[in-house]
């Protein structure tokens, strides 16, 4: 009997194979994030050679603030996508939160900025809660739910805004300073959001509830079997995504100053693109918040570079779409290569 065991196809061979295998897979996984960094670096390099103005403090600041809004959305979207869902309503949530919060100044100019932020985040949270309940307890695919709420929330926004809009002179300078304040040329808000990204990454890696999201995305039925409260976790992911979209809405309002019912229109696609370009698998289970944030930075850098290089802004959208397609194709390639390598090694252990 012992002979049969040793001669089976299972890995009973010498251990030196193991580290090599581990090195191979972690290298590939790391290469994914290095890859985005590499593309980003090359882009910045070539653009600044062609047009030095690209690296001006002012331009960098613009890129960073733009990225800040998207990075916030990307944190929430990553939580949702990792759990094998998607949140297409973030653009609409941003829009309604931006208007409702900044409109408070038109109602009561003396209102505290804390209340404004709380209302914006609260509006987002409520939207996220609605999405989360429908997805987690209604057992309806999140794609459909959030596609519907994308239009429902936008429609409500239209009804709320009516013929109104918020203009910059209605907003106090303390509020407008939220987006414009900077330390050493770097917007304060960007630093705060960068810290939030790192915090979210640490949380996802080191806490059970964070790992649960990966487990749910990797194999939902197995997650249920090991006793992960899947509905609760998914619900919370949507709530966080909504709340962050609300926060992003307030920052958006502070940055642009003019808010009507089109704020954040179409952002959902750019956010999904950023997250996927940043290496988060569209069908859940893997990816990181840091990658997603870098993805957002890359997309904004490209947009800015096109502008600086004098390429028509008409190209932005096509390039975002193309990048998204390239990113998912690349991920697919990497994933099937990885599976092949691991399976191959598994086989080679035998005999």
């Amino acid at each position: 009997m012992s002979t049969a065991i040793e001669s089976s196809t299972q890995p009973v061979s010498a251990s030196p194979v193991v580290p090599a295998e581990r090195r191979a897979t972690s290298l590939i996984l790391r290469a994914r994030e290095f890859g985005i960094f590499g593309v980003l670096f090359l882009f910045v390099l070539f653009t600044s050679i062609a047009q030095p103005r690209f690296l001006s403090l002012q331009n960098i600041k613009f890129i960073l603030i733009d990225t800040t809004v998207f990075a916030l959305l990307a944190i929430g979207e990553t939580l949702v996508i990792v759990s094998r869902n998607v949140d297409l309503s973030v653009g609409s949530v941003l829009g309604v939160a931006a208007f409702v919060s900044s409109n408070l100044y038109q109602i009561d100019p003396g209102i505290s900025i804390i209340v404004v932020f709380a209302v914006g985040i609260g509006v987002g949270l409520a939207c996220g809660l609605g999405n989360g309940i429908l997805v987690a307890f209604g057992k309806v695919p999140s794609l459909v739910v959030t596609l519907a709420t994308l239009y429902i929330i936008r429609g409500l926004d239209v009804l709320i805004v009516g013929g109104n809009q918020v203009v910059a002179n209605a907003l106090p300078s303390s509020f407008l300073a939220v987006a414009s304040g900077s330390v050493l040329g770097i917007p304060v808000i960007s630093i705060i959001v960068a810290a939030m990204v790192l915090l979210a990454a640490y949380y996802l890696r080191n806490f059970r509830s964070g790992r649960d999201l990966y487990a749910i995305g990797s194999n939902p039925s197995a997650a249920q079997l090991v006793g992960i409260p899947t509905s609760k976790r998914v619900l919370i992911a949507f709530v966080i995504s909504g709340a962050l979209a609300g926060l992003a809405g307030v920052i958006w309002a502070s940055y642009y100053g003019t808010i009507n019912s089109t704020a954040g229109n179409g952002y959902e696609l750019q956010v999904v693109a950023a997250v996927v370009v940043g290496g988060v698998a569209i069908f859940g289970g893997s990816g990181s918040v840091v990658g997603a944030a870098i993805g957002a930075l890359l997309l904004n850098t490209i947009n800015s570079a096109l502008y600086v290089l004098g390429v028509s802004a008409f190209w932005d959208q096509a390039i975002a779409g193309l990048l998204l397609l390239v990113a998912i194709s690349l991920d697919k390639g990497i994933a099937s290569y990885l599976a092949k390598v691991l399976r191959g090694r598994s086989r080679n252990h035998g005999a």
Partner: protein
Amino acid sequence: MALDVVDQSATAGSDAVGNPSPIRRLLRPLLRWEGGLALVLVISVVGGSLLSPEFLTASNIFNLQLSIGEIAIMALPLTLIIISGEIDLSVASTLGLSSSVLGYLWLHHWSMGLIIIVVLALGALLGLFNGLLVTRLGLPSLAVTIGTLTLYSGIALIVLGSTIVSNFPLSYTNIGVNSVPGVDLSYSMLIFFILAILAAVLAHYTSFGRSIYAIGSSPEAAAYAGIRVKRVKTILFVLSGVVCALAGILFTFRLSTAEYNNGSGLELNAVSISLLAGVSIFGGRGTIVGVVLSVATLGVIQNALLLTSFPQQAMGVVIGGLLLVSVFVPNISLLRNYLRSRRLRSNAALVDDAGSNG
């Protein structure tokens, strides 16, 4: 071929399994999704005529046809795609890009006949691109078509920029706004009905259609039955591209305007029509009759609301709401079906054992 090899002692247990009462069998068609949808349609027509005296006038019904024609046309191939277990979110962008190219070529003095051929071919190409990414690279159609949604409307922006083309001759734009001679039917509706009949025959009475359902229910089992899954899906995406290009042409003629963002956001309406028609988002289930009913229902509700001066831009609330309702209701009946099939299965298993014991 006489295969009397099976042990005769095993008795068939067919009589004991799942024969519902005759009354339930009679009621079953009414309980189906399409029956409920027809009821909703009747209620909305009655509601609409109560809301506004204008509602049941010939001119309003014609307007209703115009407003939903292109969307209805796009929903047909989209429905087949959803039944096959995929999705195409790029339909409205395909419409927009087709419209833009039409405008661009008209601006460059091409003849309309040639333009139409080029635009339809372009639609096929755009659909083929979706199809190849989905079937050959094995990418999820949701991600692919979100990408091409952005890409195609991005290309439309590059093609036409901020230019608005509107110098189309009346002979063409009349197709967009006039009725088919002799009937109160818009050209877009006529085309929808013709395509709906073709789609119904294709889906329900051909082996190609049966393959679509098999693929949607179980792609692997379909492949093992010799169905060319990739080919079928690719054909469906190409069909969708061509039909959306056709919708783009009609859209342009109706508004006598080619603009880069023509039709943007209409993918939601098309998806809503399909799901409201009772097509399962997970594939494998749905009928073309359902699509026709759902087009009518959505058109009536939208139209009735607009007559009560509900803002057009806020229509998303209604359509999104309908979409949610239509995915929640079947979940309730799915649950019921699931429980029933489980009961039947255990019954069958028990009968099986009893048979072996006999």
